[in-house]
């Protein structure tokens, strides 16, 4: 969990820094970490993974961490429930998982904003960020194997 937090914070800080130079459309790599957790994290402790990812993302975006945790939780639960349907070790399977997670995150963020008025940053950068899975496919596969051995 600590690893998830540190990776999310580090990637998020680098993303925010890059956005200041490049522009707001820059792909958000957060969804890659979310896809990894959804595909390889033990199902029983998925709420803790959602807590780590959502809290870190909430802190990065200076928004309600609770709202982010709920969005991540829904995205992880949705992808994890279809885990066996994806070819987890293949880039295409990881890409579909990341896209599904991004769509679920954006949808739940929209619902929270509409119902509670709580802003949750989501949108195109997150959806485009799913493409970042492709160059990271090998890394995700190895990290997944490590996670399955240790957790």
């Amino acid at each position, binding site marked *: 969990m600590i690893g998830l937090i540190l990776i999310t914070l580090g990637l998020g800080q680098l993303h925010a820094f890059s956005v200041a130079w490049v522009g707001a459309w820059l792909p958000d790599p957060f969804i890659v970490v979310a896809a990894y957790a959804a595909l390889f994290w033990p199902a029983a402790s998925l709420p803790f993974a959602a807590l780590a990812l959502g809290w870190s993302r909430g802190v990065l975006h*200076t928004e309600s961490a609770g709202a982010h945790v709920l969005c991540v939780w829904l995205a992880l639960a949705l992808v994890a429930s279809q885990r066996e349907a994806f070819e987890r070790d293949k880039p295409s399977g990881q890409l579909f998982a990341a896209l599904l997670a991004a769509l679920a995150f954006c949808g739940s963020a929209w619902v929270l904003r509409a119902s509670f008025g709580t802003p949750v940053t989501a949108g195109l950068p997150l959806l485009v960020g799913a493409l970042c899975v492709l160059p990271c496919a090998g890394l995700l596969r190895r990290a997944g194997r490590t996670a399955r051995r240790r957790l």
Partner: protein
Amino acid sequence: MGKNRWAGGAVAIACVLSLIGVGPVRSAEEWLAPALIPLDGLLTDLLPAQEDREWIDTLAEPAARAFHAHGKAVLGTVLAAATGRTTLLVPVLGADAEKHELLLAAPQGEAAGAGSAAVEPGAVVSCRGVLLGFVRELSADGLRASVSLLGLPSLRPVAAQWCAAPGGRAVEVLVSGSNAGPTESQRHTLHMGSASSRVVPVPGQLVSTRDVSALGDHLPAGLLLGAVGDRGTELHGGGWMDAGGTETPLVPLLDPYSQPLAALEVAPGSALTARATTARLSGSTAGATRLRLDVGSRRGVQRGDWVVQGHLFVGVVDVVAPFSSLLSVDVPRGALLVMSQAGEVVAADEARESWPSDWEPARGDLLATGSVFTGGLVAGRVAGLDGDGIVAQRLRPDPRLDVTVIGP
């Protein structure tokens, strides 16, 4: 598995508490922020320069003028203090609608050379020449004054008068508060009674305090209390029901809860003391309406403190954790000043509902703000108008430069 289920339930409850904005939960969320510091220091210094600095320097002087004019308007044209006392512009720190009270920053101790306490219980609190209430008590450290607002039934009656025409004979009355009924609109209302004449005032007639110093009450004369309210339905055939012998309701002229500044009766020579801390903004976290500071309660930062960068308004501290704090970039309600290119200053929020009638800002007008401790500050410019009100173009702070956190 059972343990995980309980933990999952606890996480879900914490999420809901965070979602509805429970203060301690929002503060606890910030405990993760120190983990950002190692990379933040490195990345912030490498961020691109902000191009707004030139604008801020140009607009600093007009913003200072706008706040000075606004401060003078809040102090009012009538001296709202008894003989031997004076008025001081102070910030409103909070409000308690249930108790019908305001909390003001107060100068501490004895005023130099005055030989009396800077603020005394019963001191007059006003805004724009309108009497808001009286100081009920001071905090133990003397830095906060609780103010009971007019309308409380327990508050002292106020000697007042109304006059149909300038130079005419004034009708003397007593104004007191009441809780006429159980509904919110019937609580803390003002009424006038014990009139010296049976002449009935017309709706909208202004009522102000009168000089009764001969009776030992040193409440300054000429402070507005309210306007005479509507007397109800018109009778058949024209005319109004005779209000003689009954208490006449007064409509307040100001909403006391939306005023960020007030004029407080103090001993001459009294001054507020400010607390200031330098800090850095986090450059590697992104937020549309919030920014993060690298200092928190350990450095004395408190909720409601203002954050400035030179002459630029950056925000107001909203969430405080031990080692970091979050600030809202929105200008506090009632504190936005719109200055036209002709130099006219209007205190109006971005929403249309707060605008004076027959007034509309123009594209390019200066958006300024300020507090007693910071003076006038630049907030931005009017980029345009839409159905809701002002579309503001806010000037952004440079995260590579220090900011100052200022509070009472």
